[in-house]
């Protein structure tokens, strides 16, 4: 479905990464580094240019 790239941050180990995600049809997230599920989807920065 509507997958887009988002920033994620693991609140357990601090690992940050970008990944495709569908915010309507959410799926399970797991930190690639520490396996925690406390993975926060960072708010999109409005207007800021994305690289």
């Amino acid at each position, binding site marked *: 479905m509507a997958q887009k790239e988002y920033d994620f941050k693991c609140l357990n180990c601090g690992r940050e990464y970008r990944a495709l995600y569908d915010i309507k049809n959410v*799926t399970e997230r797991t930190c690639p580094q520490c396996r925690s599920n406390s993975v926060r989807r960072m*708010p999109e920065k409005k207007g800021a240019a994305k690289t």
Partner: protein
Amino acid sequence: MTNSEVESVSGFVGNFNVTIRKKARYVDPDECTACAECANICPVAVPDEYQQGFSSRKAIYMPFPQAVPSAYILDMENCLGNNPIACGKCADVCEKKCINYDDQDELINIEAGVIIVATGMDVYDPTEYDEYGYTRFDNVITSMEFERLICAGGPTEGHFIRPSDRKIPKSIGFIQCVGSRSRNGRGNPYCSNICCMNTVKDTLLLCDHYPGVEARVFYMDMRAFGKGFEDLYMRSREEGVKYVRGIPGDVSENDENKNLVLTVENTTTGRREIHELEMLVLSQGVIPRQDGDQIKRLLTLSTTSDGFIMESHPKLKPVDAPTKGVYIAGCVESPKDVKDSVTQASAAAARASILLNAGKTRVEAITSHVETDKCNYCGICADVCPYNAILAPDRKAKRAPTIIQAACAGCGACAAECAQDAIIMRHFRDEQIMAQIEAILEVEPHKHLLTFACNWCSYAGGDNAGTARLQYPTTSRLIRTMCSGRVDEKFVLHAFRLGAPMVLVSGCHFADCHYINAVHWTQKRMDRLWNKLDKLKIRPDRLRLEWISAAEGQKFAKVMRELENSVRSVTMEEMEYTMKIMAEEENRILEKKLKAAAKKV
């Protein structure tokens, strides 16, 4: 119904609505007399799965002579074309005209009060144990292949011959635990239960068919624990079968005679031995069904770490699934032999009969209802409900939704998502949970980890840690809800206001959610909460989320250990600041609500 698969399941105990896909068979089983004319004329030959590929069958075939129903089936994938111009030979010869190339899959709806899951197991494929040469050497076979070769109804009519030269081998070796009890990443760590005795049986069959044959079994431990098992094992030893304690490290092939040469450390004598054998049988383990996900998902069953279905309770409810009205039997639950399968099946049938005979049952009074005067007709609840149990009229109609009590499963996601607090979840009301939060944080709140756990998975995972006596710090204070989807934003905010250093929300993995997808709402809500904390300048990492299944006692204990340190890292100033900010925030929310209510009146 054979050749059929369960496509969808809805409803609840006593009232399951099941759709079954009856796959096209292309032969009418009621008409077919199994005369075999069709197969005789069919020009296509493919390996016969039933005979483990030792012989071939036609594209139209009977799985095996005693098959039930006793009827042919057309394997469309291998048929030359369901087009009389392409072939059509079988339809021509069929006297009863029971072959229909246009046969279609059929969807059948049934109502069922109870469901027994007996989907069985698969056998382990030993290819990855390359040192045994299963794919490289002709005369290395698996125990399933052994069955066909020794069977009078098999491809060799019971003559146990070796594939390379079709001669009857005089010496046969068995390697045990192939794919079982392995800790090195290949195969599975568990014991497959049946293979020891299966090999004992195989050696006895060999001794019986070919007196004087030399059989050698290479093993780690021979496990002969069941009734009559030790007798068989002893008989096998008396017949002269040699049992060598030690698993071969390497198998090679003698180029000339295609014999197999095994190098093994005999751990009883401590000596390295070389054995040359004419044939080798790999005693393959049992694995969970590889196509079992569909059923698991449809019936919200979860599995233990080995991939077999988890029972409701290992001792007290071994054939009940956690989903009420669903029972499990046979190897889908764990590897077991025929006797144990039959025992468990009868137990499951008996358990199921209790409900069937009663004709009625009570469902827990955990359902939601709407307080119409608080409702602002937003209709969100109807979107949230995974069961479509909420009927919300059009917003403009300004009427509160209705909740179909029999359809509500009680996850409480609607109650948590309703911003007006207009939905009350029976037995898990806001007041009840708030009272628990307040009571827990009444004494030394700064020291504790407030944990929410869902009834089915995370709470059960905590119990699992307890049953296994896994030790973890005493920091946590747990509150049970039916689903993590019930954990309202205000519960979390209130906990922070009362001085909680950290809050953990835990629930089922998405695939295990007992309320279809109520857990989605947990995830969305957590994102909202993290953003909110961030905005209020409170560290978002003080709110944690973990998915812990009922079998993951290890993970539960690990999370508890890890979070103990995190709790300690929260400073007193931080907590005081949080309490102040949250008090303001709660007042703000309260005022907003009061205003909205005033406006409505």
